[in-house]
């Protein structure tokens, strides 16, 4: 299933280096489009740097996860995983200056609810937000198609939770030495939770992440699962493949561990800068955006006329 999925084909990258390259490109593309003859110095002052964009992205990933964990009705883990995966995928090729993460974040969660069959009507969805709920609803709905398009309509996300449960069951039946696998569960889940805030899902397959969670979760209880991994999970693998898998598991761990939360001050400074350099056409509060909305409303008044021309076109073809 996973092997021929779009996740495998289009949304796994070789590592942080490749991700950084794509993100830097998105940053550069945006700046080139809007700098209008500003000097490099002015650009640096006015626009976000790739590093600043990362601060913002990470900050919003934390906000997103918090929003999800407090969401009513309580949402299944896979909705959180899918929301975060959408968010991360979106900002591999798009700049936070072009689309503000606060809009995209909510849209990701709303779309993930639909995709994961955890359907929450928009009215109920925005009850989880404080402030002008109607405005939130409008923003979410207006960014939904953009988000879907930028995700190339590849909406199926394979999360590590199911693979993790699979390994837990397997441990029970095929690894008797571990008398009570449930005692490592807490650490395993902690690892997966942390992995959600890292780039792991853009680099590793869900089963690699799940296996890493099991291995390093067990290690916290001073239990080594290396024997299980070598003789059970990798029993059909060649030595080289086995070695590579173990290497990948260490990489998963390194990437999950390397996550450092951004400080409030850091994030605030970047946000301030963003308020000025963001794309106003995609800002629901901007005059340009509002004007577009008004044009749309006006155009809607002409529906009959438009329909008529459409009908005659249809007849013609």
């Amino acid at each position, binding site marked *: *299933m996973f092997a021929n*999925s*779009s996740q495998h084909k*289009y949304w*796994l*990258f*070789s590592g942080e280096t*490749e991700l950084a390259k*794509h993100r830097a490109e998105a940053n550069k593309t945006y700046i080139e489009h809007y700098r209008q003859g500003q000097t490099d110095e002015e650009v640096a002052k006015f626009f976000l740097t790739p590093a600043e964009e990362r601060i913002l992205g990470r900050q919003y990933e934390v906000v997103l996860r918090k929003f999800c964990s407090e969401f009513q009705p309580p949402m299944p883990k896979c909705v959180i995983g899918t929301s975060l995966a959408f968010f991360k995928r979106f900002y*591999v*090729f798009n700049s936070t200056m072009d689309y503000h993460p606060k809009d995209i974040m909510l849209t990701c969660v*709303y*779309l993930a609810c*639909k*995709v994961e*069959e955890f*359907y929450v*009507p*928009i009215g109920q969805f925005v009850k989880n937000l404080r402030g002008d709920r109607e405005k939130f609803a409008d923003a*979410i*709905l207006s960014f*939904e*198609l953009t988000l*879907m*398009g*930028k995700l*190339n*309509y*590849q*909406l*199926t996300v394979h999360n590590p939770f199911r693979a993790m449960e699979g390994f837990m069951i397997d441990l029970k039946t095929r690894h008797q030495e571990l008398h009570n696998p449930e005692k490592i569960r807490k650490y395993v889940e902690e690892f997966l939770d942390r992995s959600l805030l890292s780039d792991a899902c853009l680099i590793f397959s869900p089963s690699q992440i799940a296996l890493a969670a099991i291995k390093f979760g067990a290690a916290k209880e001073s239990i080594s699962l290396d024997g299980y991994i070598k003789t059970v999970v990798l029993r059909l693998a060649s030595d080289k493949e086995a070695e590579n898998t173990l290497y990948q598991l260490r990489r998963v761990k390194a990437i999950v561990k390397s996550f450092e939360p951004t400080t409030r001050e850091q994030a605030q400074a970047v946000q301030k800068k963003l308020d000025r350099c963001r794309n106003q056409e995609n800002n629901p509060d901007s005059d340009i955006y509002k004007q*577009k909305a008004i*044009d*749309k409303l006006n*155009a*809607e008044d*002409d*529906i009959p006329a*438009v329909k008529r021309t459409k009908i005659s076109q*249809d007849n013609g*073809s």
Partner: protein
Amino acid sequence: MPKEEPTYPFCPDETKYEKLAKIGQGTFGEVFKARDKKGKIVVAMKKVLMENEKEGFPITALREIKILQVLKNDNIVNLLEICRAKATPHNRYRSTVYLVFEFCEHDLAGLLSNPQVRFNLAEIKKVMQQLLNGLYYIHSNKILHRDMKAANILITKTGKLKLADFGLARAFSDKLNRYTNRVVTLWYRPPELLLGERNYGPAIDLWGAGCIMAEMWTRSPIMQGNTEQHQLTLISQLCGSITADIWAGVDKLDLFNKMELPKGQKRKVKERLHGYVKDQYALDLLDKLLTLDPSRRVNSDDALNHDFFWVEPLPQDLNHMLSRHNKSMFEYLAPPRRRGPIQQQQGAPGAGPSGGPGGQGGPGGVRPAGHNPDQHFERIF
């Protein structure tokens, strides 16, 4: 793993295609025949209706996209890409999304409504074999189609059959579930759905396959109920009374006591279809597909192993027969099939034209029985 051109090889806009003709109109969207301006390949574009959507992109279209991206099989319609029409004054600043499919020349409803098109027994076998093969494939991928009917079965000009219209499809699990029972066009809706079952499974699609199989001979849908009650009456008249004796647990279903179920009806599937279907193997398979109790209804694997497909005449390709017809045949374009006024079946309470109240919108809305309101079918039973 690194992709060279990661962003937009797949996210084209609609101007890439030129529309040639409208070939379908459903409850949830319009379908056009179109041509790729560059490659000159012919495609079918299904428009996702966004008007009246308070909840943004419709969840049914979302499922359709997700499901079709995974299903890749000779007997499943091939989704080529998704494309989007930009918001412009022309479309009232609404952007529209299209699902772009490989084009198929005909749909089965169109073919069956044309008396010039004749299927011999071997060709009917080929149709059914491909149809069951498609069902076998989707069911092994844990997908329910939930809208089996002749208009949703496409046939290419070389006679390859493709299951289409995954607009009501969804993933299923073997656990206890509560899906909506407001799915499947009324005339093809199995008894368990009509009785309010919400924990249903692949068997619902096999009932539809049975209805379609019979239609290969009758040329019109075999049970054209006007209401859910009427549909149950027609089913009982053909398949016998619905009782807990022949269907363990049916009395536990929500609507078992609310619907009027004809008593003392004998099962007459073979007898009544015998007027149309002479082949004993065909009758036997029909009998197994139109089994009331879903847990005893034949599954697609066993149906494919049925003698019907393995005794002479063996299934035969359709390309030869179809090569005699050079015009596309679709339900939407078919002339109304009028054979005198529709006769009201006795015992049909009311004559509402659609599949019951409250069927519009929402995830898994019920469709009216026939897509084209002008379409009239000859009554079979």
